[in-house]
């Protein structure tokens, strides 16, 4: 239960909603906006006005439904009908369906893509206007905050999170409860909390979507975290490539301040918490926590050695809690439904769900949330709908530039932090890029090495020099100029760079090479010995004398 003022808002909002017999949600995420969803929304609103239905039916710019490739997505409530690829010209048909007649629009929502998922973070299913706190409140928003700070002690909150078994969703999977209790125990004049929204992995956009669609859910998680660890200020660090997320988070913060959910004396208690958004400026390394802290301090984003860990000495050398966007977004559901409920989802060591960005050569590109422990095969062939153009599956790349490529023979592995690491890959933030037989694995390895080379901050030598050397070797291989000695050198460098680099960027940089060498060594040999690219991607120079 919320306090009286907020109850009143909830009551008014629910009453206002009841005035409408129907609601139409048009996805207003970056993906659907690029497909023209704002024009669709306008066209539907115009059509409703034309028919005099605007008092019965509300049009809302809602959140992402996941299936970005089939955007713009439009859903009609309460029938729960989901239409895909809607054009402004189809607005009359959408409005027809409100009036009950079935129409010939392309429907979605009944396929495996939707039925096989389990939504915790995305439980609001995009049916909330991200720019209105009233909307979120009416759906039970901020009840978790109210419950935590008025009925629980900070230690009890930490215990709940520990009991839920939630682990960091940024990729490394550090137990969240343990992190919180460390920060709660640390002493400092002030304590800070940070939300890491610097989603730099190419091919990953889960955090962008959560920040754009449910900014209040992140705020809610952060307020609870601040209360639990005793922090009085927080920062959300968002990459500058996500302008819509920055805009919506800033708006959400202002609204929360207006309703006494942020600022001094939250909900009339003695607990105060200030929150700001900080924008990145295009540096991949800033996803590493110590580099991110340097960046918030206005410095070059270079990492430093740990320990001391940020939990003891972080922002301005004070205790700092740093969690990923998705981790914070899991907090409110855990407090609302209970730690036991959460702990029942997933596997023994990896509990809950994980959002993945499913992209590449796959039919259903988009955003999915599945319980931990689902097999890669189910994710790719059931939820993802398999490979287009009846091509053959070759590998799935997880974990971003520090992750690896997993081949077909391991597709039946249940997804968890440990299982992916065992396969030589990495959970990472959740990018899953599917590749078919037209992708060359050496070229993919070279692509990731080029990425790490240019994103290396240059502070430590193994990463700065090593990635450049490895890139040159991979480039030589893809051009057909390499020898087996080069391959041996490449393998040695993998070992050196991964074991001696300062931060996760350098330590992970060789992973794409190591994993492709492990599963697709024959492709490397084909490039080096036979001077051919089996996938036909690389342009090799066919020179006879090297063959001889």
């Amino acid at each position, binding site marked *: 239960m919320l306090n009286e003022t907020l109850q009143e808002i909830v009551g008014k909002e629910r009453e206002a909603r009841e005035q409408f017999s129907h609601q139409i949600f048009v996805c207003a995420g970056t993906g659907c906006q690029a497909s023209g969803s704002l024009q669709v929304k306008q066209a539907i609103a115009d059509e409703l006005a034309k028919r005099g239905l605007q008092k019965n039916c509300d049009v809302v710019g809602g959140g992402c439904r996941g299936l970005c490739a089939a955007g713009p997505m439009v859903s009609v409530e309460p029938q729960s009908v989901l239409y895909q690829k809607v054009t402004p010209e189809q607005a009359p048909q959408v409005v027809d369906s409100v009036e009950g007649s079935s129409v010939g629009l392309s429907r979605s929502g009944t396929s495996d893509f939707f039925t096989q998922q389990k939504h915790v973070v995305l439980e609001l299913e995009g049916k909330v206007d991200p720019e209105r706190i009233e909307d979120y409140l009416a759906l039970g928003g901020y009840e978790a905050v109210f419950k935590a700070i008025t009925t629980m002690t900070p230690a009890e909150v930490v215990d709940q999170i520990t009991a839920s078994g939630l682990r960091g969703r940024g990729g490394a999977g550090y137990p969240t409860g343990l992190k919180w209790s460390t920060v709660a125990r640390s002493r400092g004049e002030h304590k800070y909390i940070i939300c890491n929204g610097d989603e730099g992995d190419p091919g990953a956009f889960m955090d962008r979507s959560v920040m754009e669609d449910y900014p209040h859910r992140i705020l809610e998680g952060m307020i609870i975290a601040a209360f639990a660890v005793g922090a009085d200020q927080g920062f959300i660090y968002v990459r500058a490539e996500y302008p819509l997320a920055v805009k919506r988070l800033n708006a959400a913060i202002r609204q929360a301040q207006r309703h006494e959910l942020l600022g001094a004396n939250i909900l009339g208690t003695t607990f105060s918490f200030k929150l700001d958004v900080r924008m990145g400026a*295009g540096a991949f390394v800033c996803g590493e926590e110590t580099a991110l802290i340097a960046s918030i301090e206005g410095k070059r984003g270079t990492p430093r050695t740990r320990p001391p860990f940020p939990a003891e000495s972080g922002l301005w050398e004070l205790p700092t809690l740093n969690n990923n966007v998705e981790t914070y977004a899991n907090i409110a559901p855990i407090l609302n439904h209970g730690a036991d409920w959460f702990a029942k989802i997933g596997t023994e060591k990896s509990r809950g769900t994980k959002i993945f960005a499913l992209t590449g050569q796959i039919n259903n590109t988009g955003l999915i949330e599945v319980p931990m422990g689902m097999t890669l095969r189910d994710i790719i062939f059931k939820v993802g709908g398999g490979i287009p153009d009846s091509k053959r599956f070759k590998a799935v790349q997880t974990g971003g530039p520090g992750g690896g490529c997993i081949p077909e023979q391991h597709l039946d592995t249940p997804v968890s932090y440990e299982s992916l690491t065992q396969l030589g890959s990495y959970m990472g933030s959740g990018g899953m890029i599917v590749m078919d037989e037209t992708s060359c694995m050496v070229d993919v390895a070279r692509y990731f090495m080029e990425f790490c080379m240019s994103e290396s901050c240059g502070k430590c030598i193994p990463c700065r020099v090593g990635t450049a050397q490895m890139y040159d070797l991979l480039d030589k291989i893809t051009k057909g100029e390499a020898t087996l000695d080069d391959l041996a050198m490449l393998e040695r460098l993998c070992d050196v760079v991964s074991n001696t680099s300062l931060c996760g960027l350098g330590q992970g940089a060789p992973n794409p090479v190591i994993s492709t060498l492990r599963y697709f060594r024959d492709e490397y040999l084909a490039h080096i010995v036979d001077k051919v690219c089996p996938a036909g991607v690389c342009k090799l120079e066919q020179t006879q004398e090297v063959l001889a």
Partner: protein
Amino acid sequence: MQADVRTPQIQPPDNDKRWRLVTTTMRRHGYESDSLIEVLHTTQSAFGFLTDDALRFVSVSLRLPLSKVYGVATFYNLFTLQPQGEHSCVICLGTACYIKGSPSILAKIEQVTHVKPGETTPDKKVSLLMARCLGTCGLAPCGVFDGEVVGNLSPSEATQRLEKWGENVE
């Protein structure tokens, strides 16, 4: 008063009204040196790029050595010390876009504009940039033309858009 101590005694380099945006941002952050990145963001969005004068002004105002300001301005990919063209064309080279063919789009654009990513055409019409990932992987391959995200891009559509800007495409 503490606020007086932090208020710098330096005036903007000239009478350009856009400096007011920069000083407002600095004042909002109490002229704290921590606000450097925020201030550079404001400066770049006001002037289009970071001029030498701007870097000096920010450095003195925030009481930071010019070397630090220059260091930050050159560390982050988003800051540019070069004037940008009238139009901007960003091609995404994220993993999803890469395996769906964005390198061929970039190659085509390079071929018709004769500039490489990070450069501007000699007539100052178009700046070509590349992005690490725009987060719209569902629509790969994608690009951004003057701030508008375009999905399912093809080499021919990219050149068509350049033509619309009056770029000379043979």
